[in-house]
């Protein structure tokens, strides 16, 4: 029984991480129909910004508990700014192109940004485990868990509720939903669709950077760490149904728990279980768990 609990806690923790990493991707796709491969670079970028700032923060003895806000804030701002620049000067002129072509452009951006990161921060690994150790641990039965797990699960919940609230209740969200459903009508009604696109893209990139920032204290920051994250995020987002927020959450939970079972009982399967779940879901629901029917064009 306690064993099962451990598996579940691990699974939920991993699910929280998957959700935080993937949510920006699904937001951007939902609004703009752009599958952003550069998401990986923004994730790594968030990691590097957070790790640098953490080193600075703790070596100057600033109040340690405020470091979380500083870390997440800094990665958010950095991701938002670079995302905005990217949309404003490159992507904005490409929307008429095919979905797959835009994907390739973001792939090129990913290749470029990944090397820019190497140029700025070099190829040596960085660590910043202070925020992680700061929070201490909690016990369940005879197992000890870091409280940082709770912070991650909490952030995932706050993020999902916040985004849902924004989409359903605020003026901005309602306008955004109308842009998602029909760009042309929305712009005919006086909505500045271009501005919504650039805001969404920047915001999605900022979410990727925050995901990096939150993960940083638990990992060593090395070049190329985004490469693994992006395929996992793809898997989550596609399984959930591209552009669907509840779908992403559900897919993250399923994959997190299934992976955790594999890690504990059949570790050989660990690496590909997530993609197997994705393939299995797509076999029965070709467009993912939560997907809308699309009209065929003749």
């Amino acid at each position, binding site marked *: 029984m306690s064993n099962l609990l451990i598996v579940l806690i691990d699974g939920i923790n991993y699910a929280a991480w998957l959700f935080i990493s993937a949510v920006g991707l699904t937001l951007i796709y939902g609004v703009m129909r752009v599958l952003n491969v550069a998401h990986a670079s923004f994730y790594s970028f968030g990691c590097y910004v957070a790790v640098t700032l953490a080193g600075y923060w703790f070596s100057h003895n600033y109040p340690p508990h405020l470091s979380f806000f500083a870390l997440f804030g800094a990665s958010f701002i950095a991701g938002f700014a670079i995302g905005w620049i990217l949309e404003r000067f490159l992507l904005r002129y490409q929307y008429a192109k095919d979905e797959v*072509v835009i994907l*390739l452009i973001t*792939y090129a951006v990913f290749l*470029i940004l990944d090397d820019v990161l190497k140029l700025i921060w070099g190829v040596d690994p960085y660590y910043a485990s202070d925020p992680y150790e700061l929070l201490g641990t909690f016990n369940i039965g005879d197992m000890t868990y870091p409280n940082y797990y709770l912070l991650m699960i909490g952030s995932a919940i706050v993020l999902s509720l916040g985004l849902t609230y924004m989409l359903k209740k605020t003026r901005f969200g309602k306008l955004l939903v109308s842009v998602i459903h029909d760009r042309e009508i929305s712009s005919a009604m006086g909505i500045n669709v271009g501005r919504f696109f650039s805001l969404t893209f920047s915001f999605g990139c900022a979410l990727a950077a925050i995901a990096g920032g939150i993960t940083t204290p638990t990992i060593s920051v090395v070049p190329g760490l985004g*490469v693994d994250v992006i395929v996992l995020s793809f898997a989550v987002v596609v399984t959930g149904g*591209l552009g669907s927020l509840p779908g992403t959450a559900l897919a993250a939970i399923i994959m997190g728990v299934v992976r955790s079972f594999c890690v504990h009982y059949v570790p050989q*399967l660990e690496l590909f279980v997530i993609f197997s779940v994705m*393939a299995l879901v*797509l076999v029965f629901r*070709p467009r993912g768990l939560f997907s809308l029917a699309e009209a065929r064009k003749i």
Partner: protein
Amino acid sequence: MKLDKSLIYMIGFLVGVLLVSPWLPQWILFIITLAGANGLVVLGLMLFMRLGLVSFGQALFFCAGAYTTGMLCLLLKVTDLFVLLIASGFVAGFLAYLLGFLLAKYRAIFFGLLSLAFSMILYGVLVKSEKLGSTDGFTVSGLTILGWTPETTQMKIVLYGMTVIAVIVALLFVNMILKSPRGLLLTAIRDNEIRAEYMGASAKSTIHLIYIIAGVLSGVGGAIAAMVSGHIDPNMTFWTSSGEFVFIAILGGIGSVSAPFVGALIFGAIQTIAYGYSPNTWQMTIGICLIVVILLLPEGLWSLVEKMRKKSRV
């Protein structure tokens, strides 16, 4: 069968290099041979692009071919080049036949991402299989041809010769497919699948067929890559290597069967030069080239050739 002029030039170039190969520096021969292997994979991708599909998991078959060659060598002591090549093509083709039943139903971005998922599944399996060297992979050596074991320098020429044969066969075969009614159907399906089906054509069976052909080509390409570099590892099926193939396909364009090989040669050159000058930023160079090609030459480098042709006709 009418042959394109570009096809004759391409074959002429390959055979020409073969004739002077004993006097060429080894590294040039290596790059050209590897470009031939990559070109075979990209030839398959080009067929997909004619259908309007992009696969982000073609490295799956590339890797399957390479591992077939490696495992036959390692476990069953089969070392004959031609046997290995044919076996690799067959295994990859069979895998494509099985997966094709599923993938032929998908279009656009879902086709790409589902094939990506399958290639990542193979990656996960290979990384966890310690008998096959896990992430380090293993070396492929002791190759023979018709019972003869060439020395290292001779071997490179022999491998190049074999690559030339494989590439020429593939070029002629794909050229024949594209000129056949089935080949003409590809563009029709891309432009409007429903109309094509109303005319009595089956999009699903066409995509399945193309999937198998591309699988065989990639398997043979993978086998050649394994023999030439003498080493295989799971990174061959990681999504970044699928990305490289897509890059080459975009670089070359889909205008002609020779375009993938031109693209692969130029990619090999860019990679070698960029990697030689600054190993930490070669990805950046590749990325910039990709953006430039997409923005300025959406039809790939081949569109330059076609422009020149039009000019010379006027």
